[in-house]
């Protein structure tokens, strides 16, 4: 077998992020507390550079390298661009929050960048091995990030839970992958797909492999009944880590679903559709109903994430290009809304005070009408009320489901979205109808205010003009 020189140019963004992450790792120990912002600046510059590289190298064609283990296509480029954007905003929102809590350390940025690298590898993976490599790189970074706040009992407990359950999920996924390899004799996603296309018919081992793969994916996405880690991790982790976990990795997880289930096991669509239907209904039900009982905003958003994953799965299970594009549209918009939601918590938090209870938003309209408005946009968007991006996201997945001749599922979904509207409205209610208890002025950096406002307005703007982004997703999936 000849060794073929891989085309490194295709992986240039990954290589760049890897090098820069190492540079941050090396530079950071030599910086004093006072110069820590240099680490922050390098990390942000890395993300901007990666963005430039990814968009600059984007050709619109699908290209493989590393002997088929790595793929560069439009979907990957778009998803990576949004991963950089989300991470950039996460770092920006987190800076002052961490400073106020003595958490402003280089490790956060190093782990964050390695996490981004892991996500990029996941997005571009075209072999089971590459996929697993990216996933584990991401997961290890996340475990460590949750535990960054060493003194906090909640954070360490969350990290332990996350680690144990995450490892279990990885094990499941790996077991499924090994069976896939056993059946098809290949790790390459393209070859697996070709094998399945040729050998249609019932194959018990393949069915088992599929079950394990779906369970692993459901764990990583946080779909019910594999969601147990989400509320505790979201709640226990410091908010700057929660926002990281809640946004960019979701985009990567979507990419993983696309690569594994759709590209690899697309031939088994009939089999996995039923599983995803169950996961979707359970996620929407459990997420929306339990969120009502939450008084902690981070926990509420965690359950809301679970519900959103249910909606995301609706798009995937439709099993059409239209459906995948809708799901992609959904996850990008979800990431934007999640950024804004957790960003608001960080905006209202200050040294020694964590604004993560719903009561902390009481009377926000009197304290700051502008940010109350931004939060309202985010909430109605999560509830799926027009005019907001969230409405179009829901519309997109619902029409995909109706097109797949599952009107009943669409009805179930909208009923749960009405239930969900209640707890989002409760946040609007406390902001607008109640008197403020906390009257401290909202102090935050200028750039944070600007970016958070832009974040909220983007959700509104995408609600008025969703055309371009939805077209982009359709192009990307083709």
């Amino acid at each position, binding site marked *: 077998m000849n060794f073929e020189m891989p085309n490194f140019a295709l992986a240039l963004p990954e290589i760049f992020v890897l090098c820069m992450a190492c540079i941050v790792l090396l530079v950071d120990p030599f910086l004093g507390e006072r110069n820590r912002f240099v680490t922050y600046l390098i990390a942000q510059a890395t993300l901007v550079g990666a963005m430039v590289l990814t968009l600059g190298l984007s050709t619109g064609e699908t290209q493989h390298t590393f002997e088929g283990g790595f793929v560069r296509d439009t979907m990957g480029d778009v998803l990576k661009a949004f991963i950089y954007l989300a991470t950039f905003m996460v770092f920006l929102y987190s800076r002052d929050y961490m400073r106020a809590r003595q958490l402003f350390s280089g490790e956060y940025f190093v782990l964050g960048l390695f996490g981004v690298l892991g996500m990029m590898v996941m997005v571009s993976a075209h072999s089971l091995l590459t996929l697993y490599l990216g996933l584990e790189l991401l997961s290890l970074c996340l475990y460590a990030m949750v535990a960054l706040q060493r003194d906090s009992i909640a954070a360490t407990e969350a990290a332990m839970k996350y680690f144990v359950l995450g490892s279990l999920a990885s094990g499941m996924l790996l077991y499924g992958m090994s069976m896939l390899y056993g059946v098809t004799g290949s790790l390459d996603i393209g070859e697996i797909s070709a094998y399945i296309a040729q050998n249609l018919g019932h194959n018990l081992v393949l069915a088992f492999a599929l079950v394990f793969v779906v369970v692993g994916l459901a764990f990583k996405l946080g779909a019910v009944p594999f969601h147990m880690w989400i509320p505790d991790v979201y709640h226990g982790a410091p908010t700057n880590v929660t926002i990281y976990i809640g946004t960019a990795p979701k985009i990567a997880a979507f990419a993983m679903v696309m690569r594994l289930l759709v590209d690899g096991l697309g031939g088994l669509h009939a089999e996995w559709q039923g599983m995803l239907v169950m996961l979707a209904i359970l996620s929407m039900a459990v997420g929306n109903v339990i969120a009502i009982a939450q008084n902690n905003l981070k926990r509420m958003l965690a359950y809301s994430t679970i519900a959103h994953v249910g909606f995301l799965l609706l798009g995937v299970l439709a099993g059409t290009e239209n459906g995948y594009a809708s799901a992609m549209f959904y996850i990008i918009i979800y990431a934007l809304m999640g950024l804004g939601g957790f960003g608001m918590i960080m905006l209202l938090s200050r040294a020694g005070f964590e604004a993560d209870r719903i009561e902390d938003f009481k009377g926000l309209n009197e304290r700051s009408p502008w940010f109350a408005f931004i939060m309202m946009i985010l909430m109605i968007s999560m509830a799926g009320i*027009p005019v907001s991006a969230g409405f179009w996201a829901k519309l997109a997945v619902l*029409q995909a489901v109706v097109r797949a001749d599952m009107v009943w599922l*669409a*009805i179930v979904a*909208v009923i749960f979205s*009405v239930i969900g*509207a209640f707890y989002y*409205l409760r946040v609007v*209610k406390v902001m*607008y109808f109640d008197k403020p208890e906390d009257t401290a002025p909202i102090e935050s950096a200028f750039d944070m205010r600007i970016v958070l406002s832009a974040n909220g307005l983007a959700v509104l703007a995408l609600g008025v003009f969703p055309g371009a982004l939805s077209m982009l997703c359709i192009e990307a999936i083709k």
Partner: protein
Amino acid sequence: MSSEFPLLSLVIWLPIIGGLVVLAAGKNDVLVRWLALAFSMLTFLVSLPLYTGFDSSTYQMQFAEEASWVPAFNIHYSLGIDGISMPLILLTSFTTVLVVIASWEVIQRRVSQYMAAFLIMEGLMIGVFCALDAVLFYVFWEFMLLPMFLIIGIWGGQRRVYAAIKFFLYTFLGSVLLLVAILYLYFQSDSFSILDFHDMRIGMNAQIVLFFAFLIAFAVKVPMWPVHTWLPDAHVEAPTGGSVILAAIMLKLGAYGFVRFMLPIVPDASHELDWFIILLSLIAVVYIAMVALVQEDMKKLIAYSSIAHMGFVTLGFFVVFNIFDSTNSVVGAAMGVEGALVQMISHGFISGALFLCVGVMYDRMHSRNISDYGGVVNTMPVFAGLMVFFAMANAGLPGTSGFVGEFMVILAAFKANFWVAVLASTTLVLGAAYTLWMVKRVIFGKVTNAQVAELKDLNMRETLVLGSLAVMVLLLGLWPAPLIDVMHASVGHLLEQAVSSKL
């Protein structure tokens, strides 16, 4: 009037932009009030050419606009009005001016947000009446809930939070089913155009399912018995302006949905199940009127009276199938629909006026209970005169607009079925009973307490608002022809659609 000029867009977006300007004006309450008045007046003036430039000889959509909005899903920004929607747009822009004036001194807290909410809502409501794309319709329809939610929740009464959330969730539940129905139609036709939906063929089973989806969506908004329970709560807790908009316009949106979606899109199912809607309407007319009789709270009484009157509207829409079956012509049936449409406009004026009257008293006494009043005529003679007039109109006194619509619907009902007509006619008795009994207890009799004895009569502002409504009620009652004329062609077309099978 050239059709090139995007007049409808202007009427929709002018108040919305006005709302944003008012929000930006912020803390300066005086400036805010004048700005809000200026924008609402301007919108009203801009909406007038819709009437003067309207061609009542055709049922085609006029002032049409069309632009691609979301190409990925074939969604268009398409607007247009016919004889059914045009009067409702004028009603909206007219009522908003009155609401702005009526709230002038009454609202002292967060004035800019209050005015902005009403202006934005005006634009959204007009948008619903203009939209010819189902998703555009849905966006306006749904987004409208938010300003109303805030209006009830921020400026409302004691149980405002409960009422606001109940209002929101009830109507949200109704409308998400509408969304699924729209998506199903899109799946069948690959278009979101409402006019395309009118022309497409649909099987009977699908029609019946769609019928119920539409029914739930619109019945909640109208509201029809038994999904009406949000309305009394919302009305009682909302500030006066909110109640006026709710009664005068928002309820009409539900009825408008029936004529824009249900009758033309699922005519066979409507034909098959018309008895069901007639039954619900009659329950609203008779039972809810009786409920209104026993109310202690004036706002609640008017809220129940609204439900009963809206029952007439739905009755008017759905007796047409019976008339058509017996006479085989749409001419007789037209009276039912036209009567219902006149009733919608008339109820907009009358219920708005009654809520404003209650508001006038509430501002002085801070009570809505009937028992706290008595003998108001002695201290507020001008007000008493107007209130009695509106009460008479509400009871359907000939010469007022309330009479025209009810009379036409009852006449049509007689053509359809004698017993339906008899039950519908009870409204003339019951309506008179609950309205006049309330007037008797509140306005007439001896001055019951010291507070009433100190009441001051209407000021200029209040006289202007109530006076202009009285003029409209009288005008429409004595000379309804201009209104009926603009509707005629559109109603004829609607009935053609409703009686021709799509199977």
